[in-house]
């Protein structure tokens, strides 16, 4: 069966597309927690967040932020909830990564508050140790590599800040345009 969100793009569902560009889509689904809920998802099909490339994830989050701002002002929301259900165990219903923006009002009757789980001191300590150890391995410099790969694959689309990488992007772009024109000639 086809993914529901990919179906939205092909106009196969009752959802209305609020915004789309070549990477990100914002849509109004017909099954929602509260009316006014906007679903932001990448155009390309990724099942869970871990599969979404950095640049697309960032674009999705920025889009969710902007929709949040728009919702405050145009739907008269008093607050918003941003929810990602990542994985079946987390309540994900459609196998396509998405960020839900839910407009909230004091009187909407929705209660998303969880109960605090009581943990033993040593449990906390062991979890902390495991997570810290793994988190220390997060290497932000690695993102440059993935970006370069992305550039080679997709051509443009990448926002890079510092001078060095920007140069690389431009070079890559140049190569790509050349390649494209080469392909066109024959």
């Amino acid at each position, binding site marked *: 069966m086809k993914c529901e969100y990919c179906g939205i793009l092909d106009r196969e569902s*009752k959802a*209305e597309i*609020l915004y789309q560009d070549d990477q990100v889509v914002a849509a*109004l689904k*017909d*099954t*929602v*927690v509260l*009316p*006014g809920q*906007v679903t932001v998802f990448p155009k390309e099909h990724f099942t869970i967040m*871990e599969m979404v490339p950095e640049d697309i*994830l*960032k674009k*999705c*989050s*920025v889009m969710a*932020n*902007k*929709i*949040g*701002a*728009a*919702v*405050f*002002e*145009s*739907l008269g*929301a008093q*607050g*918003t*909830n*941003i*929810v990602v*259900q*990542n*994985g*079946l*165990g*987390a*309540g*994900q219903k459609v196998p396509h990564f998405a960020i839900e923006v*839910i407009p*909230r009002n004091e009187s*909407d009757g929705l*209660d998303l*508050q*969880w*109960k*605090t*789980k009581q943990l033993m001191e040593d449990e906390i300590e062991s*979890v*902390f140790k*495991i*997570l*810290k150890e*793994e*988190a220390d391995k*997060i290497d*932000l410099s690695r993102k440059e590599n993935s970006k370069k790969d992305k550039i080679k694959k997709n051509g443009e689309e990448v926002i890079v800040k510092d001078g060095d990488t920007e140069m690389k992007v431009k070079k890559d772009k140049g190569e790509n345009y050349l390649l494209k024109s080469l392909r066109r000639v024959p």
Partner: protein
Amino acid sequence: MNSTPQLTEEQRKQLEEKLKNMSPGELREFQKQQCIFCQIVSGKIPSKKVYEDDICLAVLDINPAAKGHLLIMPKEHYVIMPQIPEDSMGHLFFISRHLSQILLKSLKAEGTNIFIANGPAAGQRAQHFMVHLIPRKESDGILEIEEKLIDHEMIRKIKSALEGKLQEVLGVKEKSGAKKEVRKETVKQKEPEHFITSDTARRFHQEKCAFAQNIPTDKKIIMDEKEAFESEKKPCSCVTGKKIPLKREEEQVQSKKMPKGNKRESGLPDEKKEQEQEEQEQEEGGDISLDDIAGLFK
């Protein structure tokens, strides 16, 4: 999470008075000083810091929904999401993705929830923006969200309400505001070219004005700035930029002249005015609502 000490009635009144007199900048600085999470960021309050870089900090939540519940917060003090710059927002999600992966792998979580609450109405308790990252196991009962079916008419209504504002937001709000002002100024400066009126008209108009366009070419009288302002005719709202309420007299005069174009003619400027008013209201209303939400934490 909230450890604000109990204040006596008098102290509370003093504080309220103090807050009232503060400028937005001072208020923000004050909030920052009071913010527990800013003190966690600076290390004044001890915490279990799992991850830290220049932009953000991830700590174990002291009131967790589950083992491994993380809070990812920007180091800078923001109360709600719309205040956060794009780069930081993207970075928070990027770090959340990394940490989510860790929760899935090393805690064998079956899924993760990212949860953000903006504003007390959404359940926000802390006065510092943060992303909750919660490791999940099936049927653990955390964040059970029920979905309802809504009809298509409703979806369409919401779409039309949201669309305009979203485009404004996407076009960077500040810039559009700045552009508007610039446009108004340039109009004022460029005006001294010429104005259009007719024998019977009570006002003189700019060339673009709907009234001017409805004057038949053979009846058009073109005046320069000096002539126009020295004449007996009054400037139209298109000239002054002020909104003058349309007088019936004028409509009548014009309708006598041009019965056919009457409807359009009297309709257009009204619509314009309404639009302008709406825009202004939206802008003002919008800013207030954002600040209000942020301000609720005082």
